[in-house]
């Protein structure tokens, strides 16, 4: 590290990688609530991880990593949106600030719990529906490919995808609520 200040913690490079790997999914979910697409999320996360590394010495303890990282990621997100200018479909600054404040509350446990619920819920869908639900992340034009393959219009398939996502979301919500009850929360 080139930082002339003495680090405030005894954490090693290995600790940094471990913390970054551990919290990367939650940081990614946080950025996604602010940014309009995944390419931008990936860029911001790359940039933010460099900044986090450079300033790692300032972190006082492991437990402070996620809130600290969210501050850095939030700054990077808002700055990336400003760079986009007005030609992209993005939310207004006021809404972004509100979303950033509210999204910052989600922690790593929430993410892990939601991931468990999502895996269970996704498994309940038929294979073609699972394929459609995952298509938006499997490369550009994947949903359109599926439309051609199934002989449906892309529009119809996007509508179906919207309904499936809503159903999936309902299942995840319900499952988390039930798990919360089971844990006495």
């Amino acid at each position, binding site marked *: 590290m080139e930082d002339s200040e003495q680090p405030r913690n005894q954490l090693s490079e290995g600790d940094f990688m471990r913390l970054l790997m551990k919290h990367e999914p939650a940081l990614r979910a946080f950025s996604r609530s602010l940014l309009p697409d995944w390419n931008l999320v990936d860029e911001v996360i790359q940039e933010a991880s460099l900044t986090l590394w450079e300033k790692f010495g300032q972190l006082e303890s492991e437990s402070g990593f996620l809130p600290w990282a969210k501050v850095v990621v939030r700054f990077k997100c808002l700055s990336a949106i400003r760079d986009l200018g007005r030609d992209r479909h993005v939310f207004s600054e006021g809404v972004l600030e509100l979303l950033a404040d509210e999204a910052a509350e989600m922690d790593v446990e929430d993410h892990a719990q939601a991931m468990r619920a999502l895996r269970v819920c996704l498994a309940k869908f038929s294979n073609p529906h699972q394929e459609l639900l*995952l298509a938006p992340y499997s490369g550009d034009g994947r949903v359109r490919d599926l439309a051609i393959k199934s002989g449906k219009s892309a529009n119809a398939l996007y509508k179906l995808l919207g309904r499936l996502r809503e159903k999936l979301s309902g299942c995840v919500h319900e499952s988390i609520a039930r798990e919360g009850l089971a844990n006495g929360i």
Partner: protein
Amino acid sequence: MESDQLIHRYLIGEATAEEVAALDGLLAADPELRRKLIFEAGTDARLREIALERVADESAEKMAPVKVSFLSPVSLLSIAAGVVAFLGAYLWTASLKPEVVATLVSSEGASWESSLPTLPGSKLTAGSLNLTSGMATIRFRSGAEVVLEAPANLVLETPMRGKLLAGAAVIDVPDEAIGFIMETPDSYAVDHGTRFAVSVDEKESHSAFEVLEGEISVHHPVTGEEVRLSGRQSSTVSGDGMVKIDGPLPEKTLASTKGRVRIDASPGAFSVVGNNEVEYLHSDFLMAKKSLPNEAFDRRSLFTFDLTGFDPDRYASAGILLNLVPTGIGYAAHLPVVNRFQIYGRAGEAGPVDGSLPRWETVAKPEECELLGTFEIPRSQKRGTFGIETPELMAFLKAHPTGRVSFLLVRETLELERGGLVHTFASDSHPASSGPVLEFYQKPKSDHDTE
């Protein structure tokens, strides 16, 4: 358009400028909708993670390297060499997974029939494992661990999916493998982070699930039923539906002998050989063989039951049971994969009544008897209980209600080469196994066994 659908359109990148502006207005005014957007953005991130895992799995099968983290090693070069090495190794090992679904962790006294490797430590690709004896522990690549108890047949499908076709297994699913699916012929269980037991009774087309710890959901695709099981709850599944049990499965009971009468063969069951040379026979065994090129080494067996004073009319069905015991005479490899046996019946004695030695040409021949049923034995099988339970047998017994009835056992399938295995069943004088048995049932035997 509903605000929920607007959120989904926004997240999948399909929303128009007007729709984004409309959503922005709604979000500004509605904290509940903002929470919804944050939640859906999280789901979007997690769905992407799952999509990426699947791409990585598919690519691993093709041995193509795939980036599984979004942190590119290039930008991390500027962090520190040591960290990059760590991350590089992480990416490399995560992306270059071989085409492996599971690992065989250990086995205890296991014997297998499988095209997959069966040495402990072996990496297993998708395929079927048939555990014929002993126990084995298989760890799916997702982390789900299956302890299999013989006799069992497990199909490895993907790191997150297996299918138990027969037998019993205890499955331990760590957090990272939540969503692991264990199918059975009629149903499937989705794991919610837990330890559970599953058993499949192939003959009865029946499966049972029991949660030992945590929670699972069991689904019946035909009826659409779904039950969630937690704590020590359990459920049984058959072709027509599921039953949820608020507690562990009842302790299994052995088939009741109520309503069943067993008659042992009369002393003196015997075999004959085509060349009538007694050294090819043994009083402990009832032999069956059909050989090439002539009948010289053929064996047939005969046994008699005494039904004096017995009334078959009081019973609904009857069966003949024979215990196959190995002797090692001949090569199983010289037989067809599956061998068929016939049981014939006739009234009266099986052999000579004057005390002389039975001879091939003088004892009952198939053409002089009534065919009552057939059964099959795979050539690989050297032990087990086999027999028939047919309407023909019951009709035969009812037609000869008193006195003695005899049965002739013949192997119908020919050996493929000379020196084939001689099938040997315990005779009434066998020191360890029971000789032929005739059983009468008040209900058909299949109903008895489910009691």
